[in-house]
Structures are given as structure tokens and as C-alpha cells.
């Protein structure tokens, strides 16, 4: 086994637009190693979200291949893709996307419920995840009672609670102020270091850049730059 967790080969993604196609990603070739903290950067419409969705097994390539954790995304059945997400991939969104009727605890617990873990195991894992993000006292709160920064930290805990190999974060700081952005980036960086989880971002945010140890620039669906950076050390 090598160290690479994502392998993208000649990946093209086209969306039907009227009677023709719009090419959102064109011949992408990329590999990601375990433990990376990488950002996809580029102007709006450059294809960042599209690429993340494919890596996250929410969408499939039109041409080429995306192999994530040893599985070819285009060959997965709907159920297998769900299984891959449930066990191995965590998601963090720009708009937090917590389920409003459930408490912080229940939001984080949900993924474990799908894994049929016992109540005791679930409680232990959820409380541990809340500790990582420093929100153990908010376990019983509803999402509406949280600030934006707290909500995003809950979302991080939700992504992390199942101990995934990969966390995909699409513009995680776009709805946060500067202080909260730095806070959550530090949290993610720590988790990346301590738990060896790979993080893959899509972002415009300059604040994010200083935390990245690799930056891939997309433009019009193509990779135009791919640089290893000297990231801040915490």
C-alpha cells in the first residue's frame, strides 16, 4: 500500500446545458497523500465544488477516473458510495448545515447511528469530538442557539466523530468573521496533525492560505498551479 488516498486520472466532468454540455472540469490529474492539508483555490465557477463532490462520492466523473481510498467512484453503487461517505469521508459546508430540530449532540451522533453503534459507544465518541472542538458544554443546545463559529465547530465535530480518513470542506470560513475563521482553521490543523486526517478545502479565503501545506489553483476547470507551501506551525 502506498500513501496516496486520492488518485484522479484524466477526470472530465460535463453538465448537460440545454442540448449541449458545459465542461466544468477538464482532464484533471492529481494525487493526494495521506495527511495532507490542501486547498483548491480559484475564481468562482472554476470547478472547485464540482471536484470536491466527485471526490466525496456525491457525484460521478463523466470521463476518466477518481479513485478515493482505493475505490473507483464511478464504479460504486449508490449504497457503496453512501457507505464510503459514512465510514471514511467527513463533510464541512459553508452554511454549516446542522439539522435544526436536533441538539448538537444528536447532530454529531447521527453518523454513528447509521453505523449501528451502541448508545454507550456513541456517547463516548460524540463527547470526545466535542472536546476536540471545545464545545462539551453545548451538547444539549439547539443549532439556533449557537453562533456561526460554534456552529461550524459542531460541523467539524460531526465530520470528525467517525474518525474519517478524509475531510472535505467547501468554503468552511466563508460565513465566518476573521477571529472565528482562524479558530476553526487552527482546530482543523490540530486534528490534521493529531489524528492524521487529510483535509481538502475549496476556498477563496486568503486567511485559509497560510494554513495550507499545498495549494492547487483551478481555472476554468483546469489545474493551473500545484504548489507545496510552508504552512504555519501551531
Amino acid at each position: 500500500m502506498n500513501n496516496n488516498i486520492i488518485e484522479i486520472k484524466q477526470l472530465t466532468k460535463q453538465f448537460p446545458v440545454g442540448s449541449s454540455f458545459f465542461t466544468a472540469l477538464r482532464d484533471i490529474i492529481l494525487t493526494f497523500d495521506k495527511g495532507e492539508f490542501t486547498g483548491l483555490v480559484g475564481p468562482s465557477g472554476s470547478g472547485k465544488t464540482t471536484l470536491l463532490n466527485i471526490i466525496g462520492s456525491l457525484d460521478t466523473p463523466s470521463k476518466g477516473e477518481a479513485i478515493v481510498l482505493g475505490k473507483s467512484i464511478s464504479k460504486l453503487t449508490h449504497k457503496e458510495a453512501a457507505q464510503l461517505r459514512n465510514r471514511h469521508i467527513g463533510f464541512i459546508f459553508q452554511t454549516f448545515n446542522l439539522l435544526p430540530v436536533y441538539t448538537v449532540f444528536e447532530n454529531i451522533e447521527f453518523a454513528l447511528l447509521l453505523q449501528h453503534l451502541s448508545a454507550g459507544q456513541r456517547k463516548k465518541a460524540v463527547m470526545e469530538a466535542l472536546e476536540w472542538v471545545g464545545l462539551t458544554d453545548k451538547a444539549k443546545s439547539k443549532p439556533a442557539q449557537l453562533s456561526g463559529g460554534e456552529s461550524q465547530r459542531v460541523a467539524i465535530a460531526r465530520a470528525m466523530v467517525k474518525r474519517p480518513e478524509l475531510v472535505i470542506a467547501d468554503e468552511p470560513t466563508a460565513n465566518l468573521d476573521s477571529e472565528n475563521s482562524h479558530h476553526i482553521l487552527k482546530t482543523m490543523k490540530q486534528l490534521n496533525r493529531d489524528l492524521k486526517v487529510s483535509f481538502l478545502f475549496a476556498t477563496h479565503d486568503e486567511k485559509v492560505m497560510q494554513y495550507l501545506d499545498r495549494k492547487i489553483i483551478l481555472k476554468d476547470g483546469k489545474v493551473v498551479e500545484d504548489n507545496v507551501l510552508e504552512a504555519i506551525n501551531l
Partner: protein
Amino acid sequence: MIQFIFKGIIRDRSRSTLPIIVVSIGVFLTVLLSGWMKGIFTDMIDMNANFSTGHVKIITRAYAENESQIPNDLALLGTDTLVPLLQKQFPQAEWVERIQFGGLLDVPDKNGETRAQGPAFGKGIDFSSPESKEASRLNIQHSLVQGTLPTKRGEAIITDDFAKRFNVKPGDKVTVFGSTMDGSMAFKTFIVSGTVRFGSTLLDRGAIIIDLADARDMLDMDNAASEVLGYLKTGQYNDEEANAIRDSFNTKYSNPSDEFSPVAQTLRQQNSLGQYLDMAENMSAIMTFIFVFAMSIVLWNSGLLAGLRRYTEYGIRLALGENKGHIYKTMIYEAILIGIIGTIIGSIIGLAATYYLQEVGLDFSSMTKNVTMMLPPVYKAKITPELFYIGFFPGLIATVLGNALAGFAIYKRKTARLFRELEV
């Protein structure tokens, strides 16, 4: 997982309130209308049984052919041996003799001259035997408007409408003119002991009820009767039991080639009561069907709306690794939970309302004034054991069907599309 769904339903009112209200109303109406219609049909059938058809009726073959004309020349003979025979052979039923007759009711003035006259329908029933239940069977005591039941021979009850029309009061005399069994003229004078109103126009128009013995006397019908009626001792008409009596009686005692030989008919065979019996039987099924249909459509639409509002939730759950089949399944579980909650609420309210209508009923007699069918005056509901569970059929079928249809739209959507809706 069920707990997770249950919390969602309880906490998110928009997800549960409307469907629960719809289910409750539907179940409420199903229970109430089933109970009420069942009550009405049962009362109607009972009333017909009590006044006219019995559970089993025995008449001569010839009488049966012209029953509407009350041809007493074709009446049953030898009832003094027939009735004891029936009691012995078919002890599961009570057997009573009745005489029906048509005639003219004449109201004399002080001098014995005719003051008023009108056609009347007459009934001779057993008032005098101590064990006779006939007066209560015809509900005479409760239908009395003035006066009392006959207490001795020579007294009669007339309908109140008739009494009003001819200004007759209890204690007045009336003379009945009719014809005897062998066609000669018959008349007898009675003292009116009371007046009754049954609430059924057909019965109330003009009738006189006298003691069976007086009728025999007047019409020369010793040991004869227009009909012998059998009432099952359970008090409830039952096809199987009635058929058994009829078949057994007809094979033993009825001779198709002798028009004076007796023949037994069940309640189902008379006055097109078969139809009503079937409706009473199937009322719950009919109501359930109607409400399953109506509620499914409402719930399907409200489910679609709720589903649209919840695209975000489904998108998140997909991202968290739930598969669509599982999401679909949880929607069905939700439907079942909502169906159960709504059914319980609807059934409780429905049973309470049915109970009220069972005890009190609604008086429609003014609306059915000109109806010639024998209808009960007050429409009462009837609580039957099935009312306690029938609500679950429309309640559960409609919610599950509604959610299944609504969920299908979501199920068919592409993961990426559902997910994309997260971002807006």
C-alpha cells in the same frame, strides 16, 4: 433510529401538525360515519323486523304472492298447532302470531251517527298474554302521545295523526269496518286507550292496533293468523341462523304444489332489506375506502410540500452517508408514527362523538316526513367493537401511501442534485 425520527416529528411541528390533523379528521369521520351509518341501518332493519318482517316470517304461499293486499282469506290456518310446533322445533327463536287487516275507521258522534271516517291499516298483536313482548317490540309504550296501552279486551291504540285529524281522544269510541276471512262484512267498536306516534310516516298515517284476540273475533280468524313471525332470541338478525330455520321449515312443512301450505322467508328476502343488510355490513369498509382515498391525496400533497422543505435535511443526511433507500424507509416510519398518533387521536374523538350519537341521536323525522320507507325517527349511532380499530386502516394506509408517493419524488432525484440544493 426510530427514536431519532420520533424526536424529529415531535419537535418539528411543521412536519407533524398538519398530517396529524388530517389523519385525525379523516379517522374521526371514518369512525363516526361508520358508527352512525351502521346505527341507522341497524335501527332501520330492526324497525322493519319488529313491525313487519320478523327475522323469519311464515305465511301461506298464496298470501306471499299478494302480500301487499293483506289477503286474509289466504291466512295461515291451524296456528294453534303451528306455533307450538315452531317453538319446539326452533327454540332459538320466539314465535308470535299477527293479524294485519285493512279497513275503514268510523268515528261516531254522541248519537252514534258517523262523524268522520277514513281508511286505516290495522294490526292485531298479542297484548294480553303475560309473556308477550309484542308491545315493547313495537315500542308502543315509548311512542305513546296520549293515554295508555290497552289494558283489556275491546281497547285499541290509534295513531296520533289519525286521532288529531278526526279529533279523537282516549276514551272515545271508534268502529272498525273490515271483512272476515271468508269475505263477509265485519265490524267492531273499540274504545281508544291511547294514541301513538312511531316517527315513521308510513306507520303514522292511519293505523289502529288492537289485541290479537279482538282481531280474531272481529275477522272470524279463530286459530288463524296473517303471519307468524320468528324473532331470534339473541335479538340480532343473523343470516345463517335465519337461513337454517327457513330451509329446515320449508323442507319439512312447505309444499310447493299447495298454495295454502306455509312458507318461511328470512328478513333478507323481504322489503329489499337484503341491500340494507349488506350496506350495514360493509359500511365500515365503504367509509374506510372513501377516507383512505381522500386522505391519501391530501397527505400526498402535504408530504410533497414537507418533502420540498426538507431537501436540505435529506442532502445533509446523504452527505453523512445515509443511503436513499434508508432515507425513504425513514419517511415511511415517520408516516407510520404520524398515522398511529393521528389514528389514536381521531379514534378517541370519533368514538366519543359516536357514543354521543348513540345515546342522543339526531332527529331527522321532520325531513323524512314524506318518505314512504320505514325509517327510524331518530338517527342513532352504534358503537361496535370494530370501531375501535377501523381507524387504523385509513390512518395508516393513507399516511404510508401519501408519504410513499411524496417520497418517491425525492427518491428519484439524483444525489448530486439533492446535495446541490444544500448550497443555495
